[in-house]
């Protein structure tokens, strides 16, 4: 079987004559087989990033005579979707395939394919006798293509699409933190969560810029103390809680009771797992800050009596009234023994944690 060793990968010209229908004996079928093998080998090279040099090409070539042998022995144990009819289409279809590949982004395969051709010449001698064994094959047997060696144009397109998606996923993996998931589905979940998280952050940050307003200072304060090395966790303050105008005393009382309940809950959670405690706090729109900072703030503001502050009135306003922002927060210190007394300044701080509510 003369093999056309052109240097050009695009030229899929196989000057061999494909047998006609009438001539479609088993030998004819194996002509198709050879072509399919060559085709598959070329596709394989394309897959492996342009061939990767002659070594890879040679390795791939070595597979094919084995494939032929094995198929001859076992009557095609491997599954190959080589529809007999697709090859009866003749050179034209195969050429189209190759032209499609050539037009694609596979540029450096010209040499590789030429090398593959030459390499194929050697095992060709070995493959020849195998064909006689394959004479037992039925002409119209449909075999499933080996993984990565399908020659159906649909499956090739599918494979291209899958590869494209895979490389995009890899690029995304570098952007998203915590991207050690190998599973595509869980990776997508991570991505979705991260996008939601970023959008939430934009929302929170836009709340904190109501110049002069009291909203969501706690996250920023928490941030500041994180630089100071405190044990600080930033929580996203919910928009709804801030926009709600709170009636002063009523809210104060209800807040007080709910806050103590919250404290106990948080203390309990903190013992087992810090992460779940954080999440619980976040769900309530609270954040954690070190007691030193909390006491600093409460002493600075000097009016640390009333617990929950109405958003409109700021009893915690600094005396001169021109402070940067008046953080209307009620500072609760979570201590193991004492109840959360509001605005404890300088109280015995056993745990280095305080819960502050914006």
């Amino acid at each position, binding site marked *: 079987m003369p093999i056309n060793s052109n240097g050009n990968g695009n030229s899929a010209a196989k000057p061999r004559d494909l047998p006609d229908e009438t001539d479609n004996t088993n030998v004819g079928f194996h002509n198709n087989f050879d072509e399919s093998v060559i085709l598959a080998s070329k596709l394989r090279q394309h897959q492996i990033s342009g061939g990767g040099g002659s070594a890879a090409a040679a390795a791939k070539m070595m597979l094919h005579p084995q494939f032929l042998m094995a198929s001859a022995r076992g009557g095609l144990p491997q599954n190959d979707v080589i529809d007999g009819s697709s090859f009866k289409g003749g050179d034209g279809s195969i050429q189209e395939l190759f032209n499609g590949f050539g037009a694609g982004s596979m540029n450096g395969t010209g040499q590789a394919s030429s090398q593959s051709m030459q390499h194929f010449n050697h095992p060709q001698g070995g493959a020849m006798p195998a064909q006689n064994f394959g004479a037992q094959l039925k002409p119209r047997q449909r075999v499933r293509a080996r993984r990565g060696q399908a020659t159906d144009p649909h499956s090739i397109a599918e494979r291209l*699409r899958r590869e*494209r*998606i895979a490389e*995009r*996923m890899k*690029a*995304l993996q570098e*952007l*998203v933190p915590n991207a050690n998931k190998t599973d595509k*589905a869980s990776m*997508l*979940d991570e*991505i*979705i969560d*991260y*996008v*939601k998280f*970023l*959008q939430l*952050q*934009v*929302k929170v*940050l*836009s*709340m*904190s*810029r*109501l*110049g*002069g*307003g009291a*909203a969501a*200072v706690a996250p*920023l304060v928490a*941030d*500041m103390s994180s630089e100071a090395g405190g044990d600080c966790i930033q929580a996203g303050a919910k*928009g709804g809680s*801030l*926009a709600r105008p709170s009636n002063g005393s009523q809210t104060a009382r209800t807040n007080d009771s709910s806050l103590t309940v919250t404290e106990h809950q948080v203390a309990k959670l903190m013992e087992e797992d810090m992460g779940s405690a954080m999440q619980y706090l976040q769900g309530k729109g609270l954040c954690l800050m070190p007691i030193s900072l909390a006491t600093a703030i409460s002493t600075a503001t000097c009016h640390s009596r009333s617990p929950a502050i109405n*958003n*409109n009135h700021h009893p915690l306003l600094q005396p001169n009234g021109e402070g*940067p*922002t008046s953080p209307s927060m009620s500072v609760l210190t979570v201590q193991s023994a004492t109840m959360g007394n509001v605005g404890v300044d300088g109280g015995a701080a056993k745990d280095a944690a305080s819960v502050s509510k914006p």
Partner: protein
Amino acid sequence: MASKHTIATRHAQGIRARFASRFLRSLLRLRRSSNRFGGSQSNDEGIGKRIRTDRIKIAAYAAMARAVGPRRTWSRALLFKLRNRARIHGVSRKRCLVSEKKRITRNKVVATSSEPSRADTLRKLVPGGDSMDTCVLLEETAHYIKCLATQVTVMQSIADRLLL
């Protein structure tokens, strides 16, 4: 002024600086307009915090979309949405969006009866995601995530400087 600004900062400074300058400018504009309406009283009674919050958020997204320009599908979709919102502003936006926006409905986009797959959830999150197929969607998501991250860092640093 707008055209000069765009030309000057086309590609020279990168997306971060472009977004920062636009966002700061729109913030100043917002503050000036709110001052004009509310005088010197606190903005809470005048406009309402929620609306103000939303305005800032929208300004941030608009600044980001303009900084990216019409190069990306998601930025185009965002700009379109914002323009509609500015125009209609209260009348049912949904109707207008559906009618004007070119929807390429494909079989895979329209969920037949199964639960929303992950790709559909992602489509809802990324602006303009409905008219993209999976491959393009992933690419757009990558760029969108990158831009969102810069947006967050810029906003964070602005907030730090403003308040402290």
